[in-house]
């Protein structure tokens, strides 16, 4: 039985119900950012939009074909963003990350410390995940093309809890 999460969260305490390994369905608004956007925000020391309590999805979608809502949009390897996690959680106060693969121990510690979570999307399943997206719009860094920050509305996006709010990691 898959548990559901609706964004925005009614407080971070809600996340206590989701334990590493749980299969979940996520609905609501999330924001994309991957390598280039992370680097730019980190160097600027701020985000171009308010990301407080937001989920960040590590993805670079393919361009949207005509008559489609979105292109393929599966997760990219999360570990490349590990060094930015402290900044994203502590300074920008994001609440969650969505990506693929294992992370350094620092990320689990940071999740515990800042009451944040890491969710895993099925890797390589960009077409399937596109089915969960009901709307996409560019919000910042258009010069980064697929690596820009996009606002995505998702419905029942299939995910697995990778690191929960208690710092438990599905890979450890």
């Amino acid at each position: 039985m898959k548990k559901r999460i609706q964004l925005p969260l009614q407080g971070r305490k809600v996340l206590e119900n989701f334990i590493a390994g749980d299969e979940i369905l996520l609905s609501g608004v999330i924001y994309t950012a991957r390598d280039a956007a992370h680097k730019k925000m980190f160097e600027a020391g701020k985000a171009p939009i308010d990301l407080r309590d937001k989920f960040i999805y590590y993805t670079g979608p393919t361009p949207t074909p005509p008559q489609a809502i979105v292109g393929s949009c599966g997760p990219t390897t999360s570990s490349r963003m590990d060094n930015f996690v402290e900044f994203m959680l502590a300074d920008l106060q994001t609440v969650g990350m969505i990506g693929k693969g294992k992370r350094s121990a620092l990320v689990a510690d940071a999740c515990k410390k800042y009451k944040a979570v890491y969710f895993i999307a099925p890797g390589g399943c960009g077409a399937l995940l596109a089915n969960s997206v009901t709307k996409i719009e560019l919000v910042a860094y258009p010069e980064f093309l697929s690596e820009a920050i996009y606002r995505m509305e998702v419905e029942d996006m299939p995910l697995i809890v990778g690191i929960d709010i208690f710092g438990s990691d599905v890979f450890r």
Partner: protein
Amino acid sequence: MRKINLAKEEYFNSLVAVIIQSNLKLEPETFDKIKSTYDSMKDLHSKNLMGYIVENCQVATEKKLPICQDTGILEVFVKIGRNVFLEGNLENFINKAAAKAYSDGYFRKSVVSALTRENTKTNTPAIIHFEFIDGDNLEFYVVPKGFGAENMTTLKMFNPTASSLDIVDFILQTVKNAGPNPCPPLFLGIGIGGTSEKALLLAKKAQSGLVEIEHVTDEELSVVDSMKSEIIKCGNELWIGPFGLGGEGSVLNVNINVYPTHIAGLPVAVTFGCWCNRLKKLVL
């Protein structure tokens, strides 16, 4: 001699179509490996996860969306018949076709300057390798290569006294270290011999199913076969599972290419193909 004029529109359109298809649909034998692994899974957790992969391939075909959003940097292996007389610039022909395919297919342009990270906006240049074959065909093998898997590539220069057991151990350890990152279950390519870059090229071709046996002796072939079955068996026992979340389905296939090397060395390369190991062939 057969003259092939690359200015012919039909040739160009065929290559564009093949590049587009390579990102939309897996080769039947690749999908069969995925589907038969899914069908044979006993562990429900693994089967559930593998189900996402099967469903994703179906959705991609139905909706004409790329199987994976990482539509890759395009690798093209070109085999030129020795009796072919080529008219035109083959590299330009390939790069123009790649640019058109990535634009028309609504594929991601992932190619950037290695130093400034500025996007070339065309997904070119492609990575092109040429070789000669007998006959009068011109063959293209197009491989969109995603970097989640590519980043896991490993090369080791063994001592010549290393055994095939040492090599298998190294490969298994490499697969274990990569864990979930290359999007398992995997298609592994192994290159043994040559020089450092030759081993990597052998591995990459093996990973794409381009296995070369012309210069391989029967004795070498039997070593290769036993290494291959050992890697598949032990690789799956690593219990990495779909997306690395633990379970059945870690290694879908392994191919090994070998080549003579120097008395002082033994290069071994491992390249990773994610479950979405893409390849399409065009023969002109």
